[in-house]
């Protein structure tokens, strides 16, 4: 859905038209710069990488050259493994993340509204939040054996606590006036929660989703495929070129999914949360 621009005369819309030639000149390179800057940065970084490996600052087995990474990319793609790993990883991340959102957001809403619940649970929440998800690996394997389940569990453990805490603190900062208005118009119970509390925190919950989301190294154990497993296997085979190739994929996928989650901030009923 698109928000229509106000075009009626006599409204207070402030049209930010460039006032003078001077400000126009400023805007022209400025409009391309946001795209150009990161590209230049990446190019510079690649050059540096190439240069370091060219002068053999580190031995080739410790720092794979861009060319060898490119070669391993080709290998992995041709073997069909890369695509398979990407799909396997995305599936696990999606399942773990969705479970964690469906449990973490309601938990945060509930905690945010009940002081006693907060007093009871927040210390425990903080305790678990600071445990690295990697610490759960042995339990994940013992409880869920091998396959997708332990990885899903680890992703859940990594994302549930930050999400619940972000939602909870968002509830705590809802201006009291919204609840007064809600009372004026007879919102109670579940309706109050779904029609007032939840939309009031939604912008911050979306930010919480973006922050807590991550392809964790959940699959380094217990799985036979996936991007994390790819890195693990490359490490075991001392194939750092292949490890770098997986790292690049993880980073790019992460960026892509963040862009996808960022689309949520464009929903018309949450725009207010980002424009103040």
């Amino acid at each position, binding site marked *: 859905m698109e928000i229509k621009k*106000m075009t009626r005369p006599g409204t*207070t819309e402030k049209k930010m038209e460039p006032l003078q030639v001077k400000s126009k000149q400023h805007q022209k390179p400025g409009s391309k710069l946001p795209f150009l800057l990161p590209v230049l940065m990446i190019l510079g970084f690649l050059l540096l990488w190439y240069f370091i490996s060219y002068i053999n600052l580190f031995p080739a087995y410790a720092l794979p050259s861009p060319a060898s990474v490119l070669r391993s990319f080709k290998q992995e793609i041709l073997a069909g493994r890369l695509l398979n790993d990407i799909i396997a990883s995305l599936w696990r991340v999606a399942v773990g993340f969705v479970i964690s959102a469906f449990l973490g957001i309601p938990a945060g809403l509930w905690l945010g509204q009940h002081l006693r619940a907060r007093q009871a649970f927040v210390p425990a929440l903080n305790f678990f939040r600071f445990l690295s998800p990697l610490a759960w690996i042995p339990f994940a394997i013992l409880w869920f054996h091998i396959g997708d389940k332990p990885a899903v569990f680890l992703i859940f453990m990594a994302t549930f606590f930050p999400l619940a805490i972000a939602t909870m603190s968002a509830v705590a900062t809802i201006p009291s*006036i919204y609840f007064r*208005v809600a009372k004026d118009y007879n919102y109670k119970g579940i309706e109050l929660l779904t029609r*007032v509390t939840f939309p*009031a925190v939604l912008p911050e919950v979306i930010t919480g989703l973006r922050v807590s989301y991550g392809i964790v190294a959940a699959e380094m154990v217990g799985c036979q495929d996936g991007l994390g497993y790819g890195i693990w296997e490359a490490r075991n085979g001392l194939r750092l070129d292949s490890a770098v190739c997986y790292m690049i994929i993880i980073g790019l996928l992460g960026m892509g999914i963040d862009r996808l989650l960022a689309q949520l901030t464009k929903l018309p009923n949450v725009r207010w949360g980002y424009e103040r």
Partner: protein
Amino acid sequence: MEGVSHNYGSVSVLNDLNLVVNAGEVVVLVGPSGCGKTTILNLLSGYIKPASGIITREGIIRTVYQQDGLFPWLTVSENISLGLRSLKEPGQREKEKRELVELIHLEGFENHYPHQLSGGMRQRVELARVLAGDSDILLMDEPFSSLDYQSRLRMRLELVRLLKERPRTVVFVTHDIEEAAQLADRVLVLSNRPATICRELRIDSIRPRDLTDHAVIEAMKEILNQLGLQASNNPI
């Protein structure tokens, strides 16, 4: 309100206040800042309970807040619909909603969100929302004080017009003496904390009143005198 007293901790805010607002009347409370004007509204709306005394109200009460009382995640028409929640039939609700949008002259902005509107437009939506449906009593807590001077003048006329179309009982709190003189059937001047009514002023001239009307200027003189803000009260 009968013999109502209230205190926050050891600070006594209201002391034995008696106030009767008749149906259809516009009562404006003015007084020095911090004197307990907002407390009176909170007591009237039932948001807080009085420490002692009795408050009786007849009918459905709604409040217009100083600012940001609209739900930012709802559009103009959805916000107005809050006031129509008691209407069961969707067709009637839709019709009422359209009428209200027309009433506040915001046709074309139904699907805008509050943050896309100016302060004056937002307050107009608030007015439409409290006037919607079956409300009887409107409490207004400095509803125009966050607007610039000219919008404030315009909104006063707007309020008079809206109340002509849909008469309501109004209790209006403000620190703006002009506003009181222009809008009120009855102005109550409150004293410093603990608030008591130190002057009751009836203004019979019909609305809309111009700021330069004789009755308005006379009323302003009276109020300013009562508040000790005239030059004659403060010999140099």
